[in-house]
């Protein structure tokens, strides 16, 4: 099956892509997609313990199932809301 991967902030910089289409073997969960990605981009490895995941623009646990056509997003630690 095929998923759309979204990457933000430093994850985007490290991979050079904000969006990727990738094949993953079913059954897959968010963790599966991340592991495939780390294999492709080893520089992402240090983020394994600090990323959040989202499926179809909703937060999702790393063990949440992923289906064909899903948008799977990986979010580094957040820093919105102002300077102070």
């Amino acid at each position, binding site marked *: 099956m095929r998923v759309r991967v*979204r990457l*933000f*902030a*430093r994850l985007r*910089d490290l991979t050079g892509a904000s969006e990727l289409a990738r094949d993953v073997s079913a059954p897959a969960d968010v963790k599966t997609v991340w592991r495939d990605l780390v294999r492709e981009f080893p520089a992402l490895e240090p983020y394994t313990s*600090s*990323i*959040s995941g*989202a499926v179809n*623009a*909703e*937060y999702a646990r790393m063990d949440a199932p992923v289906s064909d056509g899903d948008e799977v*997003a990986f*979010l*580094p*630690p*957040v*820093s*919105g*809301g*102002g*300077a*102070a």
Partner: protein
Amino acid sequence: MPKRFAVTEDKLDPSAIAALVADPGSGAVATFVGTVRRMNLGRSVVRLEYEAYAPLAVRVFERIAAESAERWPGVSLAIHHRVGTLVVGDASVAIAAASAHRADAFAVCRYAIERVKQIAPIWKREHFEGGEVWIEGATADPEDPGAKEVALRRACA
């Protein structure tokens, strides 16, 4: 009529955001505006680039409103976050909370900014004199009871 929860590239207008929540039943409106500060951790800030996962960010703002409504019924809330290039003095976030009573308006406004910082999928890259860096805060986990507890405590709840 602008929406109560938004991510936008436009300049924020705190008065317009306050107007989204005020109604004849409210006697108190508390507003918070976060702006780009000239100095950060000893660095001279030139500009910030804000980036968001916008559809999720809007849902997170709605979620924060739902959490607030559970704890402080009857308070209405609006959250707007700007993205793109901001310079010193620009507002990055504007939050307004209206209530019949001031205690609730203050509490919800404070709770909302704490939660935005904890769980909104928004990032800033700081361009300072001599370099640039992505700012990374906490891992966003909307279900983390510890983070929620911190936000409630800071809201003086």
